[in-house]
């Protein structure tokens, strides 16, 4: 005799139908990753290009023109000559005509011939401080590349040469693909599971569901399985796009990444479950899940800002942000080719975090309607 479908499978199947029937969750699952990839991949580009640079050439000699040509040849700058009096510089910035102004002094060529140090003045609009630092660095590089120029003071007895490993070209795809993976997985897992359970509370279907032999573990597993699968698929999709479209290298083991990604998804789902046990409406669950995932993952995980530059209280909070550990894992496996022994600490932290969250969720999951 055939056995009936297990209760876990029945709930999981039902949940799949809900997802298929609900355009909202479909959008979140399939459109969100695409939109985010486009946003991060093309719009939020941290590599600086085509900075409007106004050059005031007070020297007007072949030597100063040679310097200008070096700037014109660089993809970082879009050079325009500026002939107005120096006092007008401020209006240039205010009207956003230029983000930096380079002033070549009148005695530029004479001083170069004499071999003395020439002072070039660079004025930068620092309303975007990160960009200002980059502009300053690029300028320095270009000026240093001008042959026979000795702009720098006599060389120090030693020289610092930095070599950047794992992302030598400082490509932002290397930075946002792992970050996006961490962000989307936690959002889909936590947001959708918490909403899926509170929806049953809100519409009253949980009341009917509870008066059946189904156990809390069966409800939770049945609810969670579809989202584990979907989140995993999303993750694979993001990785494929990252590797093949944005050319992010993949040096480590895909199996190890898959295994640890599953661990991360489970942690995020546990968070969603815990949220669902403390909220009673979908609206509140959605808000709670979003505040617990979106901003912490963006800012408290090391995704955008280095954790060490945060105030100590935020650093402390970052210990309970799952993405903090997952980012170490993804970056480690993809860019550095880390193996499990090297990633055991973040993996253990994720395990501990999910265990704690699951225990809280399990304890709080009620099989009655008692308040």
């Amino acid at each position: 005799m055939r056995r009936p479908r297990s209760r876990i499978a029945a709930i999981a199947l039902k949940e799949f139908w809900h997802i298929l029937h609900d355009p909202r969750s479909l959008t979140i699952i399939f459109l969100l990753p695409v939109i985010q990839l486009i946003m991060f991949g093309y719009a939020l580009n941290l590599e600086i290009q085509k900075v409007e640079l106004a050059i005031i050439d007070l020297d007007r000699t072949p030597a100063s023109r040679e310097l200008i040509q070096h700037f014109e040849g660089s993809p970082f700058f879009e050079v325009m000559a500026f002939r107005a009096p120096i006092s007008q510089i401020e209006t240039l910035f205010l009207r956003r005509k230029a983000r930096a102004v380079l002033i070549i002094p009148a005695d530029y060529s004479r001083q170069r011939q004499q071999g003395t140090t020439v002072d070039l003045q660079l004025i930068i609009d620092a309303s975007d401080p990160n960009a200002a630092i980059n502009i300053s660095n690029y300028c320095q590089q270009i000026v240093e590349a001008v042959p026979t120029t000795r702009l720098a003071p006599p060389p120090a007895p030693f020289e610092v040469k930095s070599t950047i490993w794992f992302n030598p070209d400082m490509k932002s795809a290397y930075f946002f693909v792992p970050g996006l993976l961490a962000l989307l997985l936690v959002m889909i897992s936590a947001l959708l599971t918490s909403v899926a359970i509170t929806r049953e509370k809100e519409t009253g279907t949980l009341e009917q569901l509870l008066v059946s032999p189904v156990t809390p573990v069966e409800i939770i597993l049945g609810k969670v399985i579809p989202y584990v699968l979907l989140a995993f698929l999303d993750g694979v999709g993001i990785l494929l796009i990252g590797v093949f479209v944005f050319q992010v290298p993949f040096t480590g083991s895909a199996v190890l990444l898959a295994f640890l990604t599953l661990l991360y998804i489970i942690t995020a789902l546990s968070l969603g479950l815990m949220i669902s046990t403390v909220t009673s409406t979908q609206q509140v669950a959605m808000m709670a899940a979003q505040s617990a995932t979106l901003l912490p993952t963006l800012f408290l995980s090391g995704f955008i800002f280095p954790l060490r530059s945060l105030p100590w209280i935020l650093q402390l909070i970052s210990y309970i942000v799952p993405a903090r550990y997952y980012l170490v894992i993804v970056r480690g496996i993809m860019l550095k080719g880390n193996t499990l022994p090297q990633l055991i600490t973040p993996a253990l932290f994720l395990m501990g975090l999910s265990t704690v969250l699951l225990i809280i969720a399990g304890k709080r999951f009620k099989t009655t309607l008692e308040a």
Partner: protein
Amino acid sequence: MMASGENTLPIIEIQQLKKRFGTITALDGIDLHIYPGEIFGLIGPDGAGKTTLIRILCTLLLPDAGRVQLLQHDVVHDVQSIRRFLGYMPQRFSLYPDLTVEQNLNFFADLFQVPPSIRQQRIQQLYHFSRLEPFKNRPTRALSGGMKQKLALSCAMIHTPKILILDEPTTGVDPLSRQEFWHILHQIREGGTTVLVSTPYMEEADQCDRVGLMYRGKLIVVDTPQRVRQRFPYPLYRVWGQDTYALREFFQNLETVHSVHLFGDALHVAFTQPPVPSDWKHWQLTSHQQIIRWQPIEASVEDVFLEMMEAHS
């Protein structure tokens, strides 16, 4: 057709059940025995405590005091075993609106682990009662109110429960569907399932084998509808008039009148002493020919309940 009588063991046993929500006493010492094979009607106005009582029976709420057993299983300690043999239809429609009729039925069949070998037969049987088969591929949200209730009932019956508990299944359903629904409940009872059903409609009392009137957290009377009717101590008349409301006021001011209630297009007037024909002639005059017709009647369950509720107020 009658209740199985007090010599059989009760299938539901409630003793001194109490439940409070904060400062509100929802159930104030309920004692009730329900016997196998009967349809028991729990009748009472909104806020009487019907839903609280039903939720405690369904293991959804915990009693503060007292003992509640279903088939000798305690609602506090044997939750899982009770949830196996119980069918429950909550007051609020609680099936999945985006799933089809058949998907909902199959989902609950899976939850209760109805073996595939008998499942099709069971679903056919339920389609036979509910006549929902032509709509089996329709999403539940597209069903009419009456059809939704029949589907909810079918889902609650999918595992052939020993006890079926329904919380106001006919509230907000059109009269024709209500009648059909009660017909199905009788068929379910014939199939051997004990039915406990709550309703705010007192006229539905006659559909039950026994009824209990709930009022302010107490069961103020439990009996067969017939014996409930016999409890009415006053001579009762049904009176039709030109302006029913004006006429009600007229009777309320008479000294020999015990109570006046509006019943549809007429009044039910209970007297403390039987009126004689000359009384009616006199009232015709003093009410300015307001009275069209009058007729002595037997009290309905509703008359008794209204009377008892007033006595308890």
